[in-house]
C-alpha cells in the first residue's frame, strides 16, 4: 500500500516533468502569435485555478472572490512601478505577501461562516474592493493604469516584441503552483485540509486546528493568485478595476478546477487546457458577431460538463487507469 502510494507520487512527478518539458519545447513549433497568446493565458489560468483549488478544492472553503487577490497583485505591481519606479519583481513579491496577509485578516471573521454565507461573503468583499478601487483617484480610479513602457528586458519584465518570455514565465508559474499542490497534498496540511472539508467537527475532535488550517490554505492560495495577477498586469500592460477585480474573474479562476476536477491535483490543469483555448476560439471566431453565440456555447458546455461529470473530467483518466489494475 505504502509502496503503491510512493510510486504513484513519483509517477505524478515524472508525468508533470515530461509535460513541462513538452510545453517548454512547444514554441519551437508554434510561431503564430495568436496561438502563443492562447498558450500564455492557458498556463496562467492553470496556475490561478490551481491556487484557487488549494483553498476551495482541498480545504473546501468555496471562494468566489479570488479576483480580489488577483487584482491586488496586479495593482501592487503596477502602482509600485509607476509611482515609485520599483521593479515589478519586488512588486510581485509585495503583492503576494500583501494578499496573503489580507486573506488571513479577512479569514479571521469569515471562516466562522458556513456554506452559502461564506460564498456570498467572499463575493461581497471582492465587490467592495472593486468599488473602492473604481473610486480611488490615486490608483487611476475606474480608468485604470497604463503601465509605462521602458524597454524590453527581464529586469522590468516587459517584452513588447515577443510573447515568449511571458510564455516561459507562465509555464514556471503553472509548474510552481502544481508543485506546491503536489507537495502539500502529502504534507500534514494536505491531510488537515481534506479532513476540514469532509467533516470539520470530526477533524476538530481529532485534534486538527480547523481555523488555522483554513488560514494556512487562504494564505497560500492568495499569495499564488496575487503572483498570477502581477504577471497579468505585466502581460497586458494595462489594468483597470473591472478587468482585474471583477466578479467574472473570480468565476474564470474557479471554472477550470471545477470542470477538470475540484480538489484534485490534475483537475485545474486539465480544465484550463480544455476551457481556455475553447473560450478564446469561440470568442474570436463566433463572438465577433457580437451576438452572444460564444456565451451560448460556453454556458452550455459548463452545464453539460457539470451535470455529466460532477467529479470533473479528470475522472475519465482515473477510470481508464483502474481497469488494467484489476
Amino acid at each position, binding site marked *: 500500500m505504502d509502496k503503491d502510494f510512493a510510486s504513484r507520487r513519483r509517477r505524478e512527478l515524472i508525468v508533470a516533468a515530461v509535460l513541462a518539458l513538452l510545453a517548454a519545447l512547444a514554441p519551437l513549433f508554434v510561431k503564430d502569435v495568436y496561438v502563443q497568446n492562447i498558450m500564455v493565458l492557458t498556463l496562467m489560468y492553470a496556475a490561478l485555478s490551481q491556487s484557487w483549488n488549494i483553498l476551495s478544492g482541498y480545504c473546501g472553503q*468555496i471562494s468566489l472572490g479570488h479576483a480580489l487577490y488577483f487584482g491586488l497583485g496586479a495593482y501592487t505591481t503596477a502602482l509600485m512601478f509607476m509611482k515609485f519606479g520599483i521593479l515589478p519583481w519586488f512588486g510581485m513579491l509585495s503583492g503576494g505577501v500583501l494578499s496573503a496577509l489580507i486573506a488571513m485578516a479577512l479569514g479571521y*471573521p469569515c471562516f*466562522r*461562516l*458556513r*456554506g*452559502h*454565507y461564506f*460564498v*456570498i*461573503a467572499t*463575493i*461581497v*468583499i471582492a*465587490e*467592495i474592493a472593486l*468599488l*473602492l478601487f*473604481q*473610486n480611488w483617484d490615486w490608483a487611476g480610479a475606474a480608468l485604470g493604469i497604463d503601465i509605462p513602457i521602458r524597454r524590453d528586458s527581464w529586469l522590468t519584465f516587459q517584452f513588447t516584441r515577443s510573447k515568449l518570455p511571458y510564455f516561459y514565465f507562465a509555464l514556471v508559474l503553472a509548474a510552481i503552483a502544481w508543485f506546491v499542490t503536489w507537495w502539500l497534498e502529502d504534507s500534514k496540511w494536505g491531510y488537515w485540509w481534506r479532513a476540514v472539508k469532509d467533516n470539520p467537527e470530526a477533524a476538530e475532535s481529532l485534534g486538527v486546528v480547523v481555523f488555522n488550517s483554513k488560514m494556512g490554505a487562504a494564505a497560500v492560495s492568495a499569495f499564488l493568485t496575487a503572483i498570477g495577477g502581477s504577471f497579468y498586469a505585466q502581460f497586458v500592460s494595462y489594468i483597470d478595476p473591472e478587468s482585474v477585480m471583477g*466578479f467574472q474573474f473570480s*468565476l474564470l479562476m474557479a*471554472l477550470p478546477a*471545477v470542470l477538470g476536477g*475540484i480538489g484534485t491535483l490534475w483537475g485545474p490543469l486539465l480544465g484550463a487546457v480544455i476551457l481556455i483555448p475553447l473560450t478564446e476560439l469561440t470568442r474570436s471566431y463566433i463572438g465577433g458577431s*457580437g*451576438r*452572444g*453565440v*460564444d*456565451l*451560448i*456555447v*460556453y*454556458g*452550455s*458546455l*459548463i*452545464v*453539460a460538463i*457539470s*451535470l455529466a461529470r*460532477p*467529479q*470533473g473530467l479528470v475522472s475519465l483518466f482515473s477510470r481508464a487507469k483502474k481497469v488494467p489494475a484489476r
Partner: protein
Amino acid sequence: MTAETIIQSLASGLLMGLLYGLIAVGLALIFGLMDVVNFAHGEFLMIAMYATFFLFAYFALDPLLSAPLVAAALFVFGAVIYLLIVRFAVRAKANAGMVQIFSTFGLAIVMRGLAQFFFTPDYRSINHSWLGGKTVSVAGIFLPEPQLVGALVAIAAFVALYFFIHRTDFGRALEATREDAGAVALVGIDKNRVFALGWGLGGALVGLAGAIMAIFFYIYPDVGASFALIAYVTVALGGFGSVFGAFAGGILVGLVEATTALLLPPSLKSVGIYAVYLLVVFIRPRGLFGSI
C-alpha cells in the same frame, strides 16, 4: 442635508426595498425547499423584463396588465428549468454543491447569450406606460408611482405567499417536502412534482418583479447580473431558508442603500449593502431569521 431629504430618500429606499424583497423571495423559497441557490435568478428577472417589454411593444399591453401573464410564463419556465437541469444537478453524487452552483451559473451565461442573440445588446425601455415617470405626493414626500405600485404588489405577493404556504394542500406539501423529502414519498407525494412547482412559484414571483421593474428600468441582456448579487445578499441577510427573512432583508437593503447614497458618492452606494451584510453575518452567522 435637511430632514426632508432624509425622509424623502428613506421613503424611496423603503419602496425599492420591498421590490428587492420581491425579487429575492423566489430565490429564498427555492433555497428553503431544496437547499439550492439558483445562480440564474438574475436572468429569470431579465427575461421577465424582456417579456414585459415585448408585450408592450407589440400588443400595447401595459406592464400592469401583462404582469400576471409574465408571472405565469415564468412559472412555466421555472418548472421546465427544474425538470431539464436542476433535477439532474441535485442528483450528482460528487461535489453536489459545486454542481448546483455551476450548472445554474452556466444556464445564466446561456440565457445572457440567447438574449444578446435574439434581442441584441441594445438598451430598451418602456415609454408612456400608465405609471412611468409619474409621482404622487404624500404629506409633502414625492413618491414615484411605479415604485409605489411595485411596493404594494410586493406586499400583496408576500401576503398571498404566506396564505398559500400555510393554508393550501400544496403549501403543506411544500413544507413537508422541505422538512423531509424522503418521508413525503411514503405518503404518496411526488417529490419531483413539488420541487417543479416550487421552482415554478419562484419563477412566478421573480416574473412579477420583472414586470414591475420593466416600467422604470432599462432592459438589456446583463440587467439581471446587477440585481442578482443584491438578491443573494438580501436572502442571506434575512437568513437562508426563511421566506419572511427575504422580505425583511429586502426592506433593510433598500433602506441601507438609500442611506449610503446620502452619505457617499452615488458610485459607492452598494458598499453600504455589502458592509451591512458582512456586519450582520459576522455577528449572527445564519442571517437575521435563518435557522441553519
